[in-house]
């Protein structure tokens, strides 16, 4: 196998992950980045306004995600990203406008506070849809209301 191919295959198994801090997070973006650096894992780390981007081999990235999540489990959210950090095809600095996907992240960020509340107070709910009532029952209800 040629060196180019070797390099290609090593790049193939690298993944990018976005780490998003919820509004109630107990740590700031800069703290998050320093914690990531302190893990001493072979990762590319980029600080962002919502948290951080990490790039590296999949198992290393997942290891880092697991350790970082433990810091504040209900307030740290993660998401896959297709492009590597700073990719000129996506980077805001080169394109001069909001990054694709930013608007969605912005919209979902509004709900993260409530998601955190739900994660901290889990409840078991029924997935059954309310059943339809028969016309006879409906007629009875109408009659009762009219009386």
């Amino acid at each position, binding site marked *: 196998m040629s060196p180019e191919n070797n390099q290609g295959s090593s790049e193939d198994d690298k993944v990018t992950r976005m780490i998003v801090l919820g509004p109630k997070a107990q740590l700031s973006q800069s703290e998050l980045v320093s914690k990531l650096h302190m893990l001493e894992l072979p990762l590319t780390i980029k600080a962002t306004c919502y948290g951080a981007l990490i790039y590296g081999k999949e198992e290393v990235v997942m290891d880092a995600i697991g350790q970082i999540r433990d810091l504040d489990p209900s307030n740290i959210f993660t998401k896959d990203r*297709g492009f590597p950090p700073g990719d000129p095809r996506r980077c805001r600095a080169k394109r001069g406008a909001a990054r694709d996907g930013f608007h969605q992240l912005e919209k979902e960020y509004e*709900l993260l506070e409530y998601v955190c509340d739900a994660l901290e107070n889990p409840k078991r709910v029924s997935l059954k849809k309310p059943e339809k009532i028969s016309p006879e029952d409906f007629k009875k209800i109408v009659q009762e209301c009219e009386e």
Partner: protein
Amino acid sequence: MKIAVFPPNSLILADMVERRGHEPLVIQKEMRKKVTDPEIDSPPFNITEEEPIKGLKYAAIEVPSGVRGRMAIFGPIIDEAEAAIIMEDAPYGFGCIGCARTNELSMYYLRKRGIPVLEIHYPETREETMEVVNKINTFLDELEKPEETEGSERTGETGKTEVSKLGNEKTKEQGED
């Protein structure tokens, strides 16, 4: 289990799925294959004329090439899914998710797959969000117990036969083409 989420780039849905120990099937993984390939035939992304052809598996030839091209990327997610969470009325419609007809077609295929599907609406308030998160967690927990997966909100008891019928029709159509 491999869980397809819709919208396929949703942070909340993908994160919920991962927290419960399942694998979310997200669009970013498919996009990564298109943008990190060392040989990019059609810069800046590797979306070539092959994509609309691959999309023919999911949409007829009369369907716009944009829909077929998108289906070539969404399709593998739909095929791979063992369960699905569909969040309807999501307010964002940007980037790769910005085609309403593709979204409809993808949701249709997910429903017709005959896999357990949880359908929810995009929450707006605190109460709605908490209910949605609890529903997702309950759904994901129940997936691990196959004997209890007959919730009324799941679809697709007849899905498998319909899919096979669809498949036959499509093969015939393509054969004629």
